[in-house]
């Protein structure tokens, strides 16, 4: 709760930003300082994703954890980015929108101002928050404490804490915070999750500002983060919202890649999806949804797109093998659904109630305001305007994610059909799609506004 703890958090997250900025520079370059600033949110989340995945692999193989390791990872990533540029050169940035905001810049300022006020209020609310979140108290924070106090994945303690198969990216992230704060400060750790929230808003705004009019961008982006569920849970020391940021930003980058074909977009998406899969088990499901949607949406250019997508998905998946090997070699179960595979057909009576629950949660205005209806409408409008690839991708992401949410409830017959978060994870799951809407809908509406067919040959 001290000033020192806050300084430690700032230092840690500055390292992630620096590592990520080096990566973005290596992947696409910057046209000037304003572009560095515009893409700072993307840089931070990319740096966080890559450094955190690296940390997970190191923890699995037994590298002793400490603040020095975290610093070394960030430095190594930055140095590797610089060396790669020197050795391989940097991909041509190609035709990309310029760094300037579309439309009256004062409107961008107004949208940013509202975001700043909201984020400041979030900071103030989280600064002295006690650890009242049950899952955080029960396993996310204890796992982080184990890594921090004992220098790694202490097998015995990890096996005693609930959620044994849950990936350790978030505990590693929190342990890094403890190391930089100098103490397992379970109060100030809430502010650790403020940085990814800020970065998500900045990343989406930064990527879309040159592509989307401010009047279409900011209302839809702010709507996503002002939903009651995000406001209430964004600073909880848990994995849900961090997963959502990784997934939503990856979905946006894949969408941009389908239209603009910039390599850095797909590479960055792969890194974010890898981090998503090591954040929560649902990360695999959501990655599959995005991957499948992209494959189908790009079927007309399958010779060009499919190999690249396949490589990206494989590259995203490979680092997660380390964790899977760690827990499966220790006979930890709990991964597979209770009614997996053909077992679903023994519970056909749950199919429709599960789908109805997923849709009910998604369109619940008390949870998500009007984000979902506007998302669906934006897809339709983009189709009406003559676009195909982008709205097809967005529609498929939506359909596959809803199917995935349905499958989760359907395949675990012990889960009651309820939106009570203590009994069924459906509300947490739908958050991924809502924040994906926050990222994609401005792009869809811009496409609808322009009335053009997107994409190039």
């Amino acid at each position, binding site marked *: 709760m*001290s000033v020192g703890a806050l300084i430690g958090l700032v230092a840690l997250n500055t390292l992630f930003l620096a590592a990520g900025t080096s990566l973005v520079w290596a992947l696409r370059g910057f046209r000037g300082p304003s572009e560095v600033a515009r893409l700072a949110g993307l840089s931070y989340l990319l740096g966080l994703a890559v450094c955190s995945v690296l940390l997970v692999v190191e923890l699995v193989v037994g590298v002793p954890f400490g603040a020095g390791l975290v610093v070394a990872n960030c430095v190594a990533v930055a140095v590797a980015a610089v060396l790669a540029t020197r050795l391989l050169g940097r991909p041509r940035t190609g035709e990309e929108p310029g760094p300037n905001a579309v439309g009256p*810049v*004062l409107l961008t*300022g107004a949208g940013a*101002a*509202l975001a*700043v006020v909201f984020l400041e209020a979030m900071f103030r609310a989280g600064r*002295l928050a006690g650890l009242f979140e049950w899952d955080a108290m029960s396993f996310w924070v204890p796992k982080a404490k184990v890594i921090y106090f004992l220098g790694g994945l202490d097998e015995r303690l990890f096996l005693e804490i609930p959620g044994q198969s849950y990936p350790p990216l978030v505990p590693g992230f929190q342990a890094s915070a403890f190391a930089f704060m100098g103490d397992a400060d379970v109060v100030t750790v809430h502010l650790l999750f403020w940085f990814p929230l800020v970065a998500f808003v900045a990343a989406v705004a930064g990527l879309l500002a040159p592509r989307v009019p401010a009047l279409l961008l900011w209302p839809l982006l702010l709507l996503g983060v002002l939903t009651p569920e995000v406001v209430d849970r964004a600073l909880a020391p848990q994995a849900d919202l961090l997963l959502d940021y990784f997934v939503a930003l990856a979905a946006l980058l894949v969408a941009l890649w389908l239209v603009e074909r910039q390599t850095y977009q797909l590479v960055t998406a792969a890194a974010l999806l890898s981090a998503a899969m090591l954040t929560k088990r649902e990360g695999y499901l959501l990655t599959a949804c995005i991957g499948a949607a992209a494959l189908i949406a790009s079927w007309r250019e399958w010779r060009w797109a499919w190999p690249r997508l396949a490589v990206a998905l494989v590259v995203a998946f490979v680092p997660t093998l380390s964790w899977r090997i760690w827990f499966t070699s220790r006979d930890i179960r709990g991964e597979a659904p209770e009614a997996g595979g053909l077992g679903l057909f023994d519970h056909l009576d749950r199919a429709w109630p599960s789908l109805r629950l997923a849709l009910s949660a998604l369109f619940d205005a008390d949870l998500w305001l009007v984000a979902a209806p506007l998302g669906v409408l934006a897809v339709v409008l983009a189709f009406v305007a003559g676009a195909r690839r982008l709205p097809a991708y967005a529609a498929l992401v939506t359909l596959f994610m809803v199917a995935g949410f349905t499958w989760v409830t359907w395949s675990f017959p012990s889960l009651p059909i309820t939106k009570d978060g203590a009994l069924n994870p459906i509300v947490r799951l739908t958050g991924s799609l809502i924040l994906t809407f926050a990222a994609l809908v401005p792009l869809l509406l811009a496409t609808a506004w322009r009335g053009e067919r997107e994409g190039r040959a």
Partner: protein
Amino acid sequence: MTFSDVLHSRRAAWGVVLAAGLAYPLLALAGGAPRFPSVEDCEHPATSDGKVMLVYGYFDSVVRAGELRDRLRGLGYEHAEVQGDGGCGRVRVVVRGYPDLEGADDAVSEASRVGLHPTVEADFAS
């Protein structure tokens, strides 16, 4: 400067962001400077006469505090007791009942002769 100029002015845009960015914290600060809680918040050095006590030590454990209390009683401090620190999670060994600072300071001098170094604090529990 026309309205259109303002709409397209980067300076105006940054001005709006800066104004909003400063307005919220300033409003929040109107309610007082931000606090950084610590266990020392439960230590209240006495600054005036009134109910004053001597604190012989802060401990994380009642058991450890009890050991010091017993030692003090053995030295003649019959009224030494263990009490909570008022919300910071620690306990303290205290001797209460000093009506003024002068009396408390005298007791501090006396205690130092036997190797004890109590602090003088306000006694809110009375």
